[in-house]
């Protein structure tokens, strides 16, 4: 290879070696940072986590005791948000994929979903505050928080559900229709069951977002440390608790413990998502 063809001042074999090394270094660096992050939290936090920690309430503003109400808060808020968002998200996807062809309306719907996905969580917090907490007079409550979170995760569910539905082979639809199914019958008896693992993946991803969300939650669900008694109770999630402990410097120990539980929850959710994805692949291979 002559230099005149490429006009390189540096031997391309060197750039190849250097370039490749840099790329691999980047990958290694990323992995390293991730591992350090996770280990740092778990190393400091796991010692705090025991049954008492998980099952008792905080005392002295969180300096002592456990984080039970925050766990309850996180679970209730996440589940409620998912329960609200999933029907709308899946319905939107079903409508876009099965009931219409590309048109101005579908463009607008997709634009709406994409735009929602880009809105930062602090804006969701502001909105939830002014709309649910104040205007609809729901106050700082589980309901306000769940409604806000539901809108926040809606785009995720729409996007993954749409992909899931499109991945179902068209043959199934044809067969179903040829056997006398109505369009809705086809959707419920053949398409949705086939798309279920992928849809579930989207839902679980949405759950993960809810668990880690802080800004939107603090402004809509409040930060009360009491165990919630109803949908109108204010509630504190683990993320919010973690934030308050850390910023107010109340207790590093408790913060670490909460952080560890948070990270483990996220790990568990990620494992679940990957397991669903593997199940999907296995199902697809069987055809």
């Amino acid at each position, binding site marked *: 290879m002559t230099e005149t063809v490429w006009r390189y001042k540096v031997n391309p074999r060197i750039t190849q070696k250097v370039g490749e090394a840099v790329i691999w270094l980047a990958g290694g660096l990323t992995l390293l940072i991730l591992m350090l992050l996770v280990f740092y939290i778990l190393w400091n936090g796991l010692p705090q986590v025991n049954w008492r920690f998980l099952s008792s309430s905080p005392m002295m503003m969180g300096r002592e005791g456990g984080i039970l109400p925050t766990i309850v808060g996180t679970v209730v808020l996440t589940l409620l948000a998912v329960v609200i968002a999933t029907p709308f998200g899946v319905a939107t996807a079903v409508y876009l994929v099965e009931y219409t062809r590309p048109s101005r309306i579908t463009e607008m719907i997709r634009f709406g979903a994409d735009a929602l996905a880009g809105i930062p969580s602090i804006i969701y917090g502001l909105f939830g505050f002014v709309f649910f907490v104040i205007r609809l007079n729901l106050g700082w409550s589980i309901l306000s928080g769940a409604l806000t979170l539901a809108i926040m995760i809606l785009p995720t569910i729409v996007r993954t559900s749409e992909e899931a539905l499109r991945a179902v082979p068209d043959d199934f639809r044809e067969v179903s229709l*040829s056997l006398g199914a109505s369009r809705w019958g086809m959707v419920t008896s053949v398409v949705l069951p086939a798309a279920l693992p992928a849809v579930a993946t989207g839902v679980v991803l949405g759950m993960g977002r809810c668990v880690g969300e802080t800004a939107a939650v603090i402004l809509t669900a409040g930060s009360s440390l009491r165990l919630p008694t109803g949908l109108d109770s204010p509630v504190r999630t683990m993320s919010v608790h973690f934030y308050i402990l850390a910023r107010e410097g109340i207790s590093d120990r408790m913060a670490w413990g909460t952080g560890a539980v948070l990270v483990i929850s996220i790990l568990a959710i990620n494992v679940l998502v990957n397991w669903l994805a593997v199940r999907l692949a296995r199902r697809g291979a069987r055809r």
Partner: protein
Amino acid sequence: MTAEKRAKFTIRNLDYSYAQGKMALKGVSLDIPANQITILFGPAGGGKTTLIRLLNRLNDRAHSTQMSGEILLDGQDIYAPGVDVVDLRRRVGTVFALPIPLPGTVYENVTYGPRMAGERDRERLAQIVERALRQAALWDEVKDRLGESSAELSGGQQQRLCIARALALDPEVILLDEPTSGLDPISAGRVEETLQQLSERITIIMSPSSIQQGARLADWAAFFLMGELVEFDRGSAVFARPRDRRTEDYVTGRFG
């Protein structure tokens, strides 16, 4: 078209094109007799598959198509506004070229149509399953395996399962698009026998996997070339003594 056989399907001046103006069918007029095997044959692109899909409105799903002309089933226009498409498809069933078992057991596959129609009674469903599988010549092979996944069956069995599935609805017509293409000769033979038996009570409209198969099975045969109906007559006539030069060229293998 003699008076002794009434027409199940009457097709008049049918023009059909997909987007970009490609004509799939041009001026097709055809009376398909009841309770006979009618073979639609010809080289690829002739319009046979399109016509088959139009007969139970499966092509409703395609976008931006143009259609003029009429398709009548028992004298009724199937494209008239207000026609119940779901009901039409229960009367006119389809078997596709490749076996497409739905995810689920053999039982679930065969009972799919009746269940979608609202049949819930377990006794009746069991009877339907046995009848349909017997009609498809599959009962003896799967009667102990009804609860197994449909994916466990062989290719030939799966295709007969698809036929049983269509038969479960007790249709008046069955449309088949190259139904034995993916099958070994023995299974294909069984399917052909089945079709001949069924044709005594059911109208069968089929595009064959080979000219020979068409010649074997045809009571009536229609030759399609580039969207036009070239010739339609009794099977024996079309294959042995074709009137049109193009039919003769195709049947004798000079092209196609």
